[in-house]
C-alpha cells in the first residue's frame, strides 16, 4: 500500500448527503439563488432574513421542499432488474393548490402504487417546485410508463346542452356566440366502422383556433361549426346502452381534481368522496344552477390515459361539509388498466387523488432489457404486418403449440424494441397483432396481451414469468384448453368448432367465453388465476 492508497481511505466514513439533498441543490441552482460564500450556523439561521422579498418566497418553498424530500424520495427497495425507464414529469396544480401540495400527493401516489404493484426500485424525486423525476424499473414502453405514472382523476363539467345531432349542438352554440362569446371552430367527422364492427356512429371532434384553420383540416363529409371559446364537446354514452349523444359543456369544472378526497370503484360504479371545500363548491353550483343532473359530464382520466365520458346517475350530499357523487360508467372500471400496454395491475388507477394535471415531458430507457429469444421461423402469411416492424423477416417465434387444429404461435419483433406480438392458428384463418406487450413490471405471473379472434376461435397470448411452466384456460363450455409456455411467453388457442358470426365476438356465448386462465409452476402448483381480460382473480 502506498500513500495514495492511504489517502483513498482518508475519512471515507464521512457518509453521504441527506436524502433529497440533490433535488434541493438542483432547485437552488436552477432558481438562481445567490451562491453562499461562507458557511456558519449563524448564516444558516439568517439567510432568510437577508433575502429579498422574492427570495423569501423562494426560501419558504425550498424549506418546504427540503422537508418533504428528506422523507422518502425512494418508493421501494432494490430493483429486481438493472433496466427500465426514467421520466421527467411536470405537475400543473389545480387553482389554489400549491405546487408542493401537488408534488406531495403525487409522490405519495407513486409510493403506494409501487408498493401495491410490488415494483421495487421505483424512485420519485422532486427536481423543481413542480417537477419530479421518476425511475421505473422493468418498464420498456412509454405507454407502460404512462400507465404507472399517470394518476387517475375525476373532474365534472357542467353541461350546456346534450343532443343527438350536430345541428342541435350548433344551434345552442350559435346562441352563445351571438351573445358575445368569442368563437373557436370544431371539425366534426363521423367515423366509419371497420369490418366486423357494429356501426357505432362515433363522432370525432377536433378543435381549431379559427374557422379557416378548421376548414383547411376538414375532409369531404366533415362539418365545421363554431363553438364558444371555453366550451368543448364530448361524446357520451349512457351506461344503460341508450343511443350516443353529443354534449356541449363548459370547460370550467364544477368539481376539480382537488375537490376529490377519495375514489372508490366497484364494477361500473364510481363513488367520489368530496373534500369539504369541494362539497361547498358543489352546493354553490347547485344553488345557482339548480341541478347537477344526467347531462353533466364526468371526465375520468384513467391510468392508461384514456378518457371515459359518462353521465351522472346519482348525486348525494350526505351532510353539511361532506358530499359524495356516484357515477355509472360505460366500462367496467377495474378492468380498464388491463388494456394492452398498461400491464401494471388491476388497481393501478386507484390511489391518492393528485390535485394537478400530470404531463410526462421526457421518457427514456436505461440499461438493457433481455434480448428476445426465439426461433427464426417465418410466420404464416396470414399474419398482418406488425406496426413498428419493417418486415416479417425481423420476427422471432417465441412460443408455439401444435394441436389437432393446427399450429399456433407468437412472433415478436427480434430487436425487442417494440415487443409486438402476432399469433396464428390455421383453423382460425389467421390472426392479428397486439399493439404492445411489454415485460411485466410487478410479480403477476402472466400478462395477457393478445386476446383477439378469428371466425373460428381466438388466441390468448402474452408474457409469462419465469416460474410459469403451464397455462390453461377454462372455457365457458367447461372444456379446458391447454396452452404452451416458452421464452417468457405463453399462448392458448381457443378453437370454436362451429362458424360464428364475427359480429358476435364480444358476446357472452359460452363457446367464446373464457371463465378462467390458470398459470402453474413446474410442479403443477397454481401460481395465478386470471379472467379472460387478464385481470387476476382471487381464488
Amino acid at each position, binding site marked *: 500500500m502506498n500513500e*495514495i492508497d492511504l489517502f483513498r481511505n482518508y475519512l471515507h466514513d*464521512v457518509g453521504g448527503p441527506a436524502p433529497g439533498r440533490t433535488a434541493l441543490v438542483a432547485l437552488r441552482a436552477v432558481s438562481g439563488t445567490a451562491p453562499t460564500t461562507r458557511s456558519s450556523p449563524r448564516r444558516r439561521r439568517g439567510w432568510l432574513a437577508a433575502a429579498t422579498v422574492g427570495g423569501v418566497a423562494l426560501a419558504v418553498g425550498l424549506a418546504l421542499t427540503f422537508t418533504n424530500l428528506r422523507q422518502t424520495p425512494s418508493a421501494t427497495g432494490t430493483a429486481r432488474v438493472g433496466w427500465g425507464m426514467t421520466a421527467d414529469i411536470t405537475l400543473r396544480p389545480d387553482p389554489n393548490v400549491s405546487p408542493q401540495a401537488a408534488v406531495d400527493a403525487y409522490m405519495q401516489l407513486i409510493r403506494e402504487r409501487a408498493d401495491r404493484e410490488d415494483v421495487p426500485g421505483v424512485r420519485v424525486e422532486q427536481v423543481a417546485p413542480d417537477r419530479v423525476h421518476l425511475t421505473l424499473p422493468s418498464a420498456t414502453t412509454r405507454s407502460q410508463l404512462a400507465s404507472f405514472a399517470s394518476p387517475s382523476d375525476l373532474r365534472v363539467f357542467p353541461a350546456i346542452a346534450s343532443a343527438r345531432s350536430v345541428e342541435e349542438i350548433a344551434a345552442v352554440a350559435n346562441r352563445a356566440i351571438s351573445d358575445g362569446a368569442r368563437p373557436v371552430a370544431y371539425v366534426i367527422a363521423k367515423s366509419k366502422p371497420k369490418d366486423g364492427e357494429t356501426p357505432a356512429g362515433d363522432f370525432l371532434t377536433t378543435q381549431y383556433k379559427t374557422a379557416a384553420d378548421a376548414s383547411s383540416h376538414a375532409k369531404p363529409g366533415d362539418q365545421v361549426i363554431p363553438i364558444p371559446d371555453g366550451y368543448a364537446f364530448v361524446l357520451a354514452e349512457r351506461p344503460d346502452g341508450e343511443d350516443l349523444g353529443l354534449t356541449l359543456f363548459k370547460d370550467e369544472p364544477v368539481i376539480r381534481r382537488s375537490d376529490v378526497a377519495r375514489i372508490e370503484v366497484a364494477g361500473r360504479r364510481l363513488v367520489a368522496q368530496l373534500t369539504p371545500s369541494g362539497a361547498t363548491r358543489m352546493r354553490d353550483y347547485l344553488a345557482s344552477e339548480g341541478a347537477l343532473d344526467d347531462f353533466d359530464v364526468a371526465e375520468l382520466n384513467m391510468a392508461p390515459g384514456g378518457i371515459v365520458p359518462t353521465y351522472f346517475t346519482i348525486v348525494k350530499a350526505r351532510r353539511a361539509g361532506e358530499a359524495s357523487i356516484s357515477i355509472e360508467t360505460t366500462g367496467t372500471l377495474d378492468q380498464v388498466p388491463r388494456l394492452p400496454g398498461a400491464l401494471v395491475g388491476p388497481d393501478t388507477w386507484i390511489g391518492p387523488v393528485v390535485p394537478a394535471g400530470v404531463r410526462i415531458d421526457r421518457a427514456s430507457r436505461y440499461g438493457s432489457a433481455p434480448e428476445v429469444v426465439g426461433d427464426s421461423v417465418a410466420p404464416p402469411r396470414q399474419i398482418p404486418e406488425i406496426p413498428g416492424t419493417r418486415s416479417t423477416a425481423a420476427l422471432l417465434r417465441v412460443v408455439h403449440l401444435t394441436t389437432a387444429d393446427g399450429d399456433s404461435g407468437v412472433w415478436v419483433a427480434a430487436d425487442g424494441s417494440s415487443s409486438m406480438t402476432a399469433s396464428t392458428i390455421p383453423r382460425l384463418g389467421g390472426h392479428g397483432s397486439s399493439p404492445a406487450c411489454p415485460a411485466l413490471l410487478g410479480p403477476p405471473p402472466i400478462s395477457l396481451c393478445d386476446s383477439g379472434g378469428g371466425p373460428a376461435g381466438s388466441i390468448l397470448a402474452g408474457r409469462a414469468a419465469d416460474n410459469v411452466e403451464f397455462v390453461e384456460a377454462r372455457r365457458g363450455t367447461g372444456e379446458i384448453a391447454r396452452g404452451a409456455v416458452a421464452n417468457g411467453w405463453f399462448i392458448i388457442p381457443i378453437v370454436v368448432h362451429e362458424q360464428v358470426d364475427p359480429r358476435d365476438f364480444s358476446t357472452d356465448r359460452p363457446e367464446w367465453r373464457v371463465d378462467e386462465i390458470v398459470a402453474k409452476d413446474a410442479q403443477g402448483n397454481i401460481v395465478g388465476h386470471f379472467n379472460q381480460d387478464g385481470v387476476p382473480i382471487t381464488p
Partner: protein
Amino acid sequence: MQTDAQIIEEAERTPEAFATVVRRHHDAIWRYVARRLGPDTADDLTSDVFTTAFAARTRFDSARDSARPWLFGIATNLIRRHARHEAQILDAYARTGRPPHVDAPANDGAGPALAAALAKMRKPHRDALLLHALADMTYEEIAQAMDVPIGTVRGWIHRARAVAARELAAQGVLPHPPRDADAKVAEK
C-alpha cells in the same frame, strides 16, 4: 444518454434541464467536500458549486462531454475560501487523533499522519493530490479542473506524495521513502 455538455447547452434554453447535471455529480462532489471540510460545510458548499456552475453555464467548454472536471474545479476554488477552516481541521486531527466530522473515537492509524501531511503541503499540491485520491480523477481531469497543464499536475502530485511519504514514514505508517524523493522535495 445525453452528455453533460448537451444538457448544459439545453439548460441555456430550458434551465430545469440543469437538474440532471446536479443529479449526476452532486453526491460525488458532496463526499469530496465533506471529507475535506465536513458534512455541514459540504451541504452549503456543494450547493454553491452548482449555483455557481449554473450561473456560469454559458462558459462551460462544450468540447468536453463531462462536466465533472469543471464542477470539481469550482469546488476546489470554493474550498480554498475555507483554507483556515481546513487547516484547523487538519491540525486538530493530527494532534488529537480524533477523526473530524464523524462520531468515532481517536485512533492512532494512518488518519492523523495523513492529516499532518496534508497540513504541510502547499495548497495546490494538496488540491491535486486529493482530487486524485478522493475523487478518483485522472491527471488530465485534474488539469482541466485546476486549469493548469497536465505536466504541472504531475509535478504537484509527485511533490505532494513525497511530503506525504516523508510524514508517514516519520510516524511509522510507511517505510522510509527513498533518498531521491527527499531530494526532490527539497528542490521546491
